[in-house]
């Protein structure tokens, strides 16, 4: 066991998979000598050499497009996109090729690719450094979408993602990159993709969340003093609807929390599914506490945009009072 923050847990996972599997290589902007702008790949180029940790030109479509080629050849590339706001230029390669290759070739070509992307707000960064586009990729069949909320989860989920034979969008909530540490096994381990984690159990209400928001949810739960169950999705697609269903059937009430805008955020899908699966068990309409349907503001106002414990508490109260 080691006491690690999320950055260190990911760094360790990368080291272990690279040591184990020669097919694994990293590529991206500034990931080599500089160790990435968040230092997630710190020391890896020194350790594994310039052919396995490759500084690429500044071009995200190029990074993902060449990674697709690497994957078609049977390697297991792990590109880093510097911030989620710079996924845009790579959107086409991700959606028209990475997500489609297996099915459009009926399995002749597969894309074992893990795209690592720092995600989310709350770190006082410039514009386009604070968004949460997970729903966009969850609406793209052929991809898996993962977002850990702790160092332990990050390591286990990343190793699973790397070993997964299909393309995975691995979103790393930058707000909790270094905000806390926890015990992380030094040996390798995996956490199954598609399985949620019950952070704490309760009978009165279910909160569903993922990524950095899990922290705000915990704060709100503590504040509330009520008997609340918190389900951390861990994987956005495929998502663990069974765990949600089981919890909501028990509690009858649900609040969903995410940073992305409300409209067509992934909370919408969960809400719709809960209606479909738990209709007769619901004591109150499912509530969503999310980013607003605006552009994430520059940092002076970012905390007014992001869902916080206060807003979550209000939703909990409203939902319990219903």
């Amino acid at each position: 066991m080691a006491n690690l923050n999320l950055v260190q847990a990911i760094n360790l996972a990368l080291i272990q998979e690279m040591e184990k599997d020669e097919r694994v290589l990293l590529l991206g902007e500034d990931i080599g000598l500089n160790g990435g702008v968040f230092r997630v790949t710190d020391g890896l180029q020194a350790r594994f050499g310039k052919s396995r940790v490759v500084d690429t030109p500044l071009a995200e479509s190029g990074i993902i497009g060449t990674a697709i080629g690497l994957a078609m050849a049977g390697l297991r590339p792990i590109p880093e996109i510097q911030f989620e706001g710079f996924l845009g230029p790579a959107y086409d390669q991700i959606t028209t090729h990475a997500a489609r290759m297996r099915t459009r070739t009926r399995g002749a070509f597969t894309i074992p690719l893990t795209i690592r992307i720092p995600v989310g707000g709350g770190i006082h960064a410039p514009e386009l450094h604070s968004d949460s586009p997970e729903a966009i990729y969850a609406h793209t069949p052929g991809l898996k979408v993962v977002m850990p909320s702790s160092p332990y989860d990050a390591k286990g989920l990343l190793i699973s993602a790397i070993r997964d034979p299909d393309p995975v969008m691995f979103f790393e909530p930058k707000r909790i990159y270094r905000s806390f540490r926890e015990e992380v096994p030094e040996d390798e381990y995996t956490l199954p993709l598609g399985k949620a984690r019950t952070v704490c159990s309760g009978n009165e209400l279910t909160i569903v969340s993922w990524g950095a928001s899990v922290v705000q949810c915990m704060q709100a739960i503590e504040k509330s003093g009520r008997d609340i169950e918190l389900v951390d999705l861990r994987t956005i697609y495929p998502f663990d609807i069974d765990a949600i269903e089981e919890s909501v059937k028990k509690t009858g009430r649900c609040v969903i929390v995410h940073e992305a805008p409300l409209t067509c955020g992934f909370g919408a899908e969960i809400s719709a599914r809960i209606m479909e699966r738990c209709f007769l068990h619901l004591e109150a309409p499912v509530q969503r506490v999310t980013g607003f349907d605006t552009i994430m503001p520059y940092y002076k106002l970012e905390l007014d945009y992001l869902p916080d414990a206060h807003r979550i508490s209000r939703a909990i109260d409203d939902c319990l009072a219903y």
Partner: protein
Amino acid sequence: MGYSYPPSANMTRSAIADFPMPITTAFSTEIKRVSILDEHGSFDESLGKGLIPDPDLLRLYEAMVTCRILDEIAFRLQRSGRMGTYPQNMGQEATSLGASYVLNKDDWMVTCYRENCGLFWRGVPMESILLHWMGDERGNAMPREHFTTPIAVPIGTQMLHATGLAWAAKYRGEKRIAATFFGDGASSEGDFHEACNFAANLEIPVVFVCQNNFWAISSPATVNCSAPTVAQRAIAYGMPTIQVDGNDLFAVVKVMRDATAWVREHGKPHFIEMVTYRLGDHTTADDARRYRDQLEVDKWKGRDPITRIFNYMKSRSLWDDAKEAALRERCEKAANDAVARAEGIVDPQKNEFFDSMYHELPADLVLQRDTRQTHSLGQSESASLTASSSH
């Protein structure tokens, strides 16, 4: 060999180099153009002699004729409703064929959709291509041993895959290189730039082949590249580059052979502009008479790559009308057999499109597949129903 290699890139750059005063030359270069057998029958012995042994030439000729015949049949199939939109290859057979002839069997060939002749040469079954355009993904299930990639529909995107595939070969220490084909229109896409730039800066062995057929649907080549040549796009990357008469199989083979040798030796990319012409419509959904001049088409009919080899073989007495007749019969049979095979493949199962979505299908997708519904009511029941009834 008649032209220097690589085209001169006479300066190197360093962050601490001094700046001479006041006006100096920072860079100069030139691009060569190669032509061996022209449409009037002139043949340049200095470059052409021995380039393609006669027995190979016969096989290559047969490949072009077969491809042309299949092209004509495909067009008729579409017109009679037996095939979807289809892009004819007519007039461009020599480009991809010459390239495939030069490439090793285990080099990657990363194409677009107008390179049938080269793909068939590498062993891709004709029925695969037909099946693809008949609206069936199984046509894209390219057997790995051909080292060809599926047909690329989004223009300009596949060159990055070529760069990645060649990068993988370099990473593994394999000798394999990649060649990638794309159109003049495709050279406008950002991905084209990124593919060349990655290959040049990361030193990846790719041959970039622009098939300049002068049109991108209705846009004349100048809309996509107003520069004097497409070949000069490569100068942006410090990449060796050359222009070739793409309807001249000999010149294509010559240039491709030199380029692949250079790429293998240096582990870096090389660019080729193959100048050719699309004799047919863009696809069967297009009507080229709306936007282009029949005079231009006629001029290019006179430059047909197939006729050129036919005349050349005749002039060398390798060929006569009887041989031609026999060959046509063989080719037609081959093409018709391929159509029969493609049409003989039973239609896919209604649910087939679920099965290759992921290595392991998520439970939710299994449910959607088995119930054939997305609405939730009765979904679990009908799922168990299907599950039990399938036993």
